[in-house]
């Protein structure tokens, strides 16, 4: 067995970290627990593949990330999700004029009062932001977190979620336009 891996200490050293990592991305405690367990068990099967190029924690996190992407992909292909997505896409058409692409009358961006770099964000604004994030369709949220939080390369995201690169930009755009509109509606 590889010298750098210490499976006897895994739970004590990394379980809580991996658990928080999964919760932040899935927003589901039970699913997060299951994934932590699956990650350790999968890692045990792969110990011989560990080359010691990254730290033990980074290596375990990479295994967990792959499992999260699998869940994202499953989530975004369910029947119920397709309905949520269709509704969100419909809403998207309301933001821009169909003929010339201009903002429609009710959807033009207005200042929130948070545009200054040094502005301190209140707890209340954070609450609204969380609520708006949860309203995004699963696929959009997956693309958004993989890009903005985990800073994955675009190709990795497209391959993991099985989307084309053209579709990637459309999703990144739609997610942000929806999120911004939700903030405007619930904050101002």
């Amino acid at each position, binding site marked *: 067995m590889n010298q750098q891996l210490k499976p006897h200490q895994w739970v004590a050293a990394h379980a809580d970290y991996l658990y928080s990592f999964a919760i932040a991305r899935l927003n589901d405690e039970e699913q*997060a627990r299951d994934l932590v367990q699956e990650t350790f068990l999968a890692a*045990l099967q792969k110990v011989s593949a560990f080359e010691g190029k990254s730290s033990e924690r980074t290596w375990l996190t990479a295994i967990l990330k792959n499992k999260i992407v699998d869940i994202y992909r499953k989530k975004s292909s369910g029947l119920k999700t397709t309905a949520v997505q269709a509704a969100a896409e419909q809403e998207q058409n309301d933001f821009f004029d169909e003929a010339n692409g201009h903002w429609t009358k009710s959807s033009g*961006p207005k200042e929130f009062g948070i545009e200054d770099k040094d502005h301190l964000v209140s707890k209340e*604004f954070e609450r609204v932001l*969380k609520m708006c994030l949860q309203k995004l369709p699963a696929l959009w949220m997956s693309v958004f977190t993989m890009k903005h939080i985990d800073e994955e390369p675009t190709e990795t995201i497209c391959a993991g979620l099985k989307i084309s690169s053209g579709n990637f930009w459309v999703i990144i755009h739609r997610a942000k336009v929806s999120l911004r509109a939700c903030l405007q509606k619930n904050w101002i």
Partner: protein
Amino acid sequence: MGYLKRVIYNCKKATLLIEKQEMARLTFKEAFELRLHLFGCSFCRIYKKQSAVINQMVRQLFHDSSLKGAKLDDAFKKDLQERIENELNKN
């Protein structure tokens, strides 16, 4: 509609380019069209500022929640440790 007018009206395209610009290089034509659009469109100028701030805030939100650190309960951890030990003993 002429080319310039199309660029000036099209906020949908301009906001897509704003998103793209935050993480990739625009082509010369795209960069030109975006500059031209932003020059005349106060809505999209607000959008651009907000888009960057939203990215920052979402990042902060995830960062904070991982620092706060959700914790697994001890019973679950004990079980998990036992499963790992079992697996290790198999080999």
